[in-house]
């Protein structure tokens, strides 16, 4: 029976201070029991001599300086792990909320994880066919990658994430099992329900572990949510050899929780009030994706974040972009034009695609086609800005062709319906059809051999 401490020294926001505690260790877990018998969990965040500063996960409402008893649990925050964790639903701090009782643990793991040794990683190369043309061709998702969706409030990022989950053949060919770990941070109940309903509809619910920290749940729990989720993902991937797709939504809410917590600790703020360590903190989450040599599993991450005011230079998308291996940016004007998925092609990128596409992976002409589509679409933007000044009629014949190409590209290539699942061949052929709208001299990124094989203006006519 470990010691219990009666009363508190100080309460400040989510933090409480306790004096005269010997033998407390950094980041140790704490259980606070109130007079009415209810208990809350907390964690030591700072120690000064025999004074410990504790963050209380469920908030400090109702706590007074004398009505609590505190017990130190002598271990850091741990998540119980077992393969049966698939199909379960937890709250933000990893407690089951589906009424099925506690998980019978095979082992416990520290939720902070440990950094993967760079020499133990193997470089991700296997591409995931998502069935979405814009992603497959232009920003290919690779198994073990972290590829976030940069979106804004009101855009259809959730629908896109669900479509990726439904169509992505993560475990294809390898004969291994796949699983999904879904962490909701600060999203509203409707969003969580939408995901749950979609998982059920597509029959994958038994392979999903859900962590729900909804927008009215305590913010301290929100800081733990992705860590619990990733601990589960790492366990399933690297110890159970499964291919795991992790969806984290919404990273902006997570960062805001971190900011709130940081300011209550009285830390010096960096940009826009976010703590100076936001980069390291986000990295400690995103870097938990990958493939490890000697293990057959993988962790692929799709974090979703909403850019406040659609501003890509806001600290959260900005720092995320520096850590993740590319990004899928959604565009409001495309969304308003009714294009789904509204992927803004030019700022989107996948850093790992160059080694996972082409001969032996997708199709030999893939790198050149995607390069040419990017270059051509960049020209479309130039032509459009010119047209907005001098009018479309005054454009040169080539620029007019680019305008036409741009329209068709957005309609047929970027746009596709929610249940349209395209193979990579379909996608690339469609790319060639669109490129065939342009004069052959304008295609400076393509090989002559490929042009001879695929370039066909007649097909482009059919598209119209």
């Amino acid at each position: 029976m470990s010691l219990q401490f009666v009363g508190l020294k100080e309460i400040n926001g989510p933090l409480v201070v306790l004096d005269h505690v010997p033998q407390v260790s950094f980041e140790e877990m704490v259980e606070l029991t109130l007079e009415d018998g209810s208990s809350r969990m907390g964690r030591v965040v700072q120690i000064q001599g025999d004074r410990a500063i504790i963050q209380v996960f469920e908030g400090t409402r109702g706590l007074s300086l004398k009505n609590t008893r505190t017990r130190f649990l002598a271990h850091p925050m741990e998540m119980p792990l077992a393969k049966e964790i698939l199909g379960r639903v937890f709250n933000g701090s990893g407690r089951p909320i589906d009424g099925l009782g506690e998980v019978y643990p095979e082992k416990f793991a520290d939720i902070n994880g440990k950094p993967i040794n760079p020499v133990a990683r193997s470089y991700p190369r296997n591409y995931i066919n998502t069935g979405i043309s814009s992603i497959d061709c232009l920003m290919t998702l690779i198994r073990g990658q972290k590829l976030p969706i940069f979106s804004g409030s009101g855009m259809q990022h959730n629908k896109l994430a669900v479509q990726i989950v439904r169509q992505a053949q993560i475990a294809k060919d390898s004969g291994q099992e796949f699983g999904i770990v879904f962490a909701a941070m600060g999203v509203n109940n409707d969003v969580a329900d939408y995901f749950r309903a979609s998982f059920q509809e597509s029959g994958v619910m038994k392979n999903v572990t859900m962590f729900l920290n909804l927008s009215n749940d305590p913010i301290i729990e929100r800081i733990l949510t992705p860590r619990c989720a990733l601990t589960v993902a790492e366990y399933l991937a690297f110890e159970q050899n499964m291919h795991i797709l992790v969806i984290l939504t919404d990273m902006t809410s997570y960062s805001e929780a971190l900011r709130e917590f940081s300011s209550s600790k009285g830390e010096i703020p960096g940009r826009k009030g976010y703590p100076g360590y936001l980069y390291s903190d986000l990295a400690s989450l995103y870097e938990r994706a990958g493939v490890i040599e000697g293990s057959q599993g993988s962790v692929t991450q799709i974090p979703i974040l909403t850019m406040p005011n659609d501003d890509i230079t806001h600290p959260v998308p900005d720092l995320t972009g520096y850590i993740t291996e590319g990004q899928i940016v959604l565009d409001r004007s495309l969304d308003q034009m009714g294009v789904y998925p509204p992927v803004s092609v030019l700022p989107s990128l996948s850093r790992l695609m160059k080694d996972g596409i082409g001969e032996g992976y997708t199709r030999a002409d893939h790198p050149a086609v995607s390069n040419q589509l990017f270059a051509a679409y960049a020209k479309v933007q130039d032509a459009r800005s010119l047209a907005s000044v001098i009018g479309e009629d005054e454009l040169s014949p080539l620029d007019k062709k680019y305008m036409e190409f741009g329209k068709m590209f957005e309609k047929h290539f970027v746009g596709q319906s929610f249940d349209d699942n395209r193979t990579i061949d379909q996608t690339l052929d469609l790319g060639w059809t669109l490129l065939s709208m342009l004069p052959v001299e304008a295609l400076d990124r393509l090989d002559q051999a490929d042009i001879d094989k695929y370039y066909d203006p007649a097909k482009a006519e059919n598209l119209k």
Partner: protein
Amino acid sequence: MSNTVYSINGPVVTVKETKDFSMMEMVYVGNKRLIGEVISITDAFTTIQVYEVTTGLQPGEPVYSTGSPMCATLGPGILSNIFDGIERPLKQLEQMSGAFIGKGCNVDALDDEKLWDVKITVKKGDALSGGQIYGTTQETPLIEHRFLVPPSLSGEVVDTAENGKYKLSDCIVKLKDKKGAIHELTLCQKWPIRIPRPVDNRLPIAMPLITGQRVIDTLFPIAKGGTAAVPGGFGTGKTMTQHQLAKWCDADLIVYIGCGERGNEMTQVLEEFSELIDPKSGKALTDRTVLIANTSNMPVAAREASIYTGITLAEYYRDMGYHVAIMADSTSRWAEALREISGRLEEMPAEEGFPAYLPSRLSEFYERAGFMETLSGNDGSVSIIGAVSPQGSDFSEPVTQNTKRFVRCFWALDKSLAYARHYPAINWTSSYSEYIDDLSKWYKENIDPTFLRKRQELSSILQEESKLMEIVKLIGSDVLPDDQKLVIETARVIRVGFLQQNAYHKDDTYVPLQKQLKMMEVILHLYNRSKEIVATGLPLSSILQTGLFEKVSKMKYDIPNDQPELFDEYMADIDKQLSEVH
């Protein structure tokens, strides 16, 4: 009396009321002996930054003094290795704690079991001073490792071992100093990472660091011993540029510091470099490369140290007489580590939360670059190429601005170029190199007397184009007179055919300077001949119809690097086709 931990706040730990520690001393913290460094001392508290995760540490645990500052171990076995920020070999860490890095792993930086084939180059009675060479060994097929007398020592050789195989800690030479004390020289030595290694003197910059990248070598060259910054928002190709330079630049040795970046990128470097062959020597690139990997999720204090560890290793090889290039990716993450630790120390922040000493730390780092005469009388250099990741792609933020003050070469990466997949996305209007004048003599003597004049012509065309584009954006290109349209067409050829370079193309990934010169000549020839024709009143469209502009744009692919004679055919073809224009 033993010292114990008093307070813990993330990686910052304090010890109460002790006078046992000195500033910047390396210490071991706690029962797990986590590695730390003393960063501030007051009457009441000594503050220590810990290079590992402090979870589970308790107040009252012991803190051990080592009596020496944070040191790098210098000796054979550094090359082709991969270390973390405080020179722990990651492969050994993997053997100790598996795929995930554990806590309190104290491993030697270099393998003490391995035998090196040592040749001793001094004999009894020789006088040796600090920095001189007393033996050599072939560290990798590419690099001969030269053993240097520690800079602070000098004296007379009183004993030498036979040539043969020795371990790292074996004594091979004994040195008697002026006071008569005997010093044993082994295959390795230690050097505090935060102190620059001494040199005889600094030599003027005179040689370019040739990278094979056209936009760099021709437009914005960097010198051996020079400094360059590569700022760019995410996705603009900072890392790609650094990789290209690490692969192809003509330094003898590369120190690649992955400071707070992605784990997969380090894996990529590891895999790619072991497969790539150095074009000059025919040996694997890893033979001349050392990697320092402190990825973004590894402890932040070690990230701060990684930059210093890297440059100390570089200086050590420079002292042997090598030309070393450092790629630091990215210095912004290092600055953020400074900010994070400064915040934990509750120091008064300056701009955007960065500590007020950010500029002085940056300048200290970049000043360790240079072309030097070493203590042993050889020439050696350290060139630094630092990536900068500006927040929100805004070049006015403190790290970019302060870096700009201390580097002489600035390769600004541009988002809109990257969006159009124009790589390397180095913007030719906002980038600059201050080394042109220093290097002009070298270019004249070694490449061509007209090289710099042609470079100037090329960049004037680009400048003029950017002015004309302002007009084109407003009223379209149709209204321009033909001579201005010609400028725009030529600039397009320069951009697509010259500045854009394909890192995945077997010829285009590295282009020798002679070919760069020839390409410039062809482009300028086409421009000048066309200009003459336009001046006679013939329409530009008839010149464009010849297809010469497209042909010249593609010459980077069509002419292999080893067949420069094909350029003459291009010149002749231009003359022939243009003379037929009516």
